[in-house]
């Protein structure tokens, strides 16, 4: 499932953030799959206390999910610990997640930073942290203000309640009735890995996952309250049992753990990526419509499409240069040219399928690498094989690409040797004798190999950054120069991560 360099990259991230002990436990889980505590202790020859602390840190930071699995034949169960590779790699994107909030809900940026730094926190801990960070002499924010900013994050699905600590899950049972119902489209398309099944089993229902912390109003008739607070106050009027409401609120504040919702942030980055990627290819004058479409998008229903109401699009266009002069017919026509079709659920909305943009971008990345590494001819041949999807004869390749026969043979051999393409010999029988044909196709695993290369590059960049950090720690006369290099490497790693996300998360 996870490539070799992917594991090395994840282990390097954990080692940088949490030290050598935790990274050993993490590597053990990534290499051997889900393991019980005693098995981890046995393999690593560490003390149970050390392994327990490491697991606590990994669970706190959402890198490990525990679950109960049956042991042998009896009714006994044992707790297994599963490393979640995606969540580990997300750690090098936290600054991007934070920048999303900075643009969308800037007043909640500090709260999200606390959650990203500490993994999981109760609302009470967040309040305590916020207050302790206020410089002396400044005004301390009110608890209700913090609650309001926090609930904005929950409402927008940037923050969620944490999953169950150790749900029951039997790896041998394939039936996932609950999960299947929730994620029917995915189940039909892709066979879920055990990792995904465990994560789905542990996840709360959406209603529970994003239920906000209730407001407590001392004076329900206060006219200065915001509409949301008024609604809560009205609800409280009808609730004769004041104690129950107050108790629920206290529990929600001090015992329920919250964490960042990585799915939401990944989707936001996906939208941004697709919008930026396609922008250079747009016709003159259509940029504002393209931007307005993405800015007006509603709460998403799935992870592959963007839906925007026409009213929202026109409203956004009104704020852009030249937008007010566009007619509805013009906007509609441009949207359809951009592959935004009217939504079947809501006739007044337009929907765009992101899958095509993602797929095209992925092919561009790989073809770009082939071109740089093997030359233009190899790029032409490789692209032909990618589009054909099936086996292609050598003669057909020569005729289609209009390349010299010897060049084609040499290029095919290079690509085959480096595991980009596969070959197959076919014997054709005729009356007088046998003739041999060679057919070529793209190797099924070339995408996985490309992902491994991306992880390898990210790992190398991290090692270079750490090396320069060591030099800076030593102290030297060229501090400024070293710091500049370090920043450039971090910038390269940040940009490179876009490609990694394109293949792993989008």
């Amino acid at each position, binding site marked *: 499932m996870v490539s070799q360099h992917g594991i090395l990259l994840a282990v390097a991230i954990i080692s*940088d953030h949490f030290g050598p002990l935790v990274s050993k436990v993490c590597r053990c889980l990534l290499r051997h799959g889900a393991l019980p505590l005693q098995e981890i202790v046995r393999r690593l020859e560490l003390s149970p206390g050390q392994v327990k602390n490491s697991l606590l840190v990994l669970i706190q930071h959402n890198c490990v999910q525990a679950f109960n699995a049956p042991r042998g034949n009896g009714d006994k169960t044992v707790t297994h610990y599963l490393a979640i590779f995606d969540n580990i790699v997300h750690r090098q994107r936290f600054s991007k997640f934070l920048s999303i909030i900075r643009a969308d809900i800037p007043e909640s940026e500090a709260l999200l930073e606390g959650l990203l*730094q500490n993994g999981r926190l109760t609302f009470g801990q967040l309040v305590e942290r916020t207050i302790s960070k206020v410089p002396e002499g400044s005004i301390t924010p009110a608890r209700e203000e913090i609650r309001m900013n926090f609930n904005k994050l929950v409402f927008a699905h940037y923050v969620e309640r944490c999953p169950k600590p150790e749900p029951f899950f039997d790896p041998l049972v394939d039936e996932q009735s609950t999960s299947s119902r929730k994620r029917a489209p995915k189940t039909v398309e892709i066979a879920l890995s055990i990792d995904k099944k465990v994560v789905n089993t542990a996840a709360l229902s959406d209603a529970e996952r994003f239920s906000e912390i209730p407001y407590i109003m001392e004076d329900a008739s206060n006219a200065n309250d915001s509409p949301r607070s008024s609604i809560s106050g009205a609800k409280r009027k009808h609730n004769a049992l004041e104690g129950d409401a107050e108790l629920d609120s206290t529990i929600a504040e001090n015992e329920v753990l919250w964490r960042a919702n990585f799915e939401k942030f990944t989707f936001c980055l996906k939208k941004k990526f697709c919008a930026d990627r396609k922008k250079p290819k747009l016709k003159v004058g259509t940029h504002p419509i393209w931007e307005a479409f993405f800015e007006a998008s509603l709460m998403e229903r799935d992870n592959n499409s963007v839906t925007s109401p026409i009213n929202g699009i026109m409203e956004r266009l009104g704020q852009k240069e030249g937008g007010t002069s566009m007619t509805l017919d013009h906007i509609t026509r441009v949207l359809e040219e951009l592959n935004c079709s009217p939504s079947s659920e809501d006739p007044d909305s337009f929907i765009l399928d992101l899958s095509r943009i993602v797929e095209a971008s992925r092919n561009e990345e790989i073809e770009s690498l082939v071109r740089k590494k093997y030359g233009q001819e190899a790029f032409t041949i490789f692209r032909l094989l990618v589009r054909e999807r099936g086996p292609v004869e050598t003669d057909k390749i020569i005729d289609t690409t209009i390349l010299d026969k010897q060049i084609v043979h040499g290029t095919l051999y290079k690509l085959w040797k480096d595991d980009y393409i596969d070959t197959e010999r076919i014997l054709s029988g005729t009356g007088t004798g046998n003739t041999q044909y060679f057919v070529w196709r793209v190797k099924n695993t070339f995408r996985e190999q490309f992902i491994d290369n991306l992880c390898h590059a990210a790992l190398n960049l991290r090692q270079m950054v750490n090396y320069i950090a060591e030099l800076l720690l030593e102290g030297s006369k060229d501090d400024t120069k070293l710091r500049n290099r370090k920043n450039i490497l971090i910038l390269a790693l940040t940009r490179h991560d876009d490609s990694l996300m394109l293949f792993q998360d989008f």
Partner: protein
Amino acid sequence: MASRGRGRGRGRRGGGYGFDHPAKHTPHEDFPDITLPEMTCARATMEEKALIQSTLKFEDFWKTSCYHLEEDVPKKKNDDKEIERYSDRKRKTHSKREALASYLILTPANFPVELVQGSKRGQPSSKKLRWDRSSDDQAFEVFEKLEEKHKDGDKKTEKDGDDEDEHEEEEVEEENSDDDYNQNIEFDDDDDDWNQEEEAHEDYYD
């Protein structure tokens, strides 16, 4: 070169065959000047600069937080293994960390039972937690400065006119002023050292 030529000439005189022409030396020409491409990958937008600062802040937090678990190495063995380097002083400031249990809500509702069982804390304490390590580091640095001055005083009484101490003191002050994420990020476009690395990057992931 010349002697070899003469030897052959003598040996084959009868054949009328030999080397009697010296090698011609072409004057050296420098490699032609090349205009290097503009370094676009080193130029960061404002948004990217914010990303860099945010990344550095996150990583600095984790390295100094209670979540960073150290291997337990006996002090004696550590002393024997290697001589303590000057730069190790800076790492000592990380030796004291907040207790991990103080920051986790160790209840069966949040963590697996077998990990929570051994925990000494049954109830959350009212102890005030420190959520930001940087202020703590600064306090430690102040003590380090005082200690350094104290040592400096001792050495001066024993050895007068020792220049190394003053040099070290200057270095310490210089180091303390370097904060990775507080200082403005500046890219030096004239730095030739970037060229090679940049080209390597451009080759693979444009």
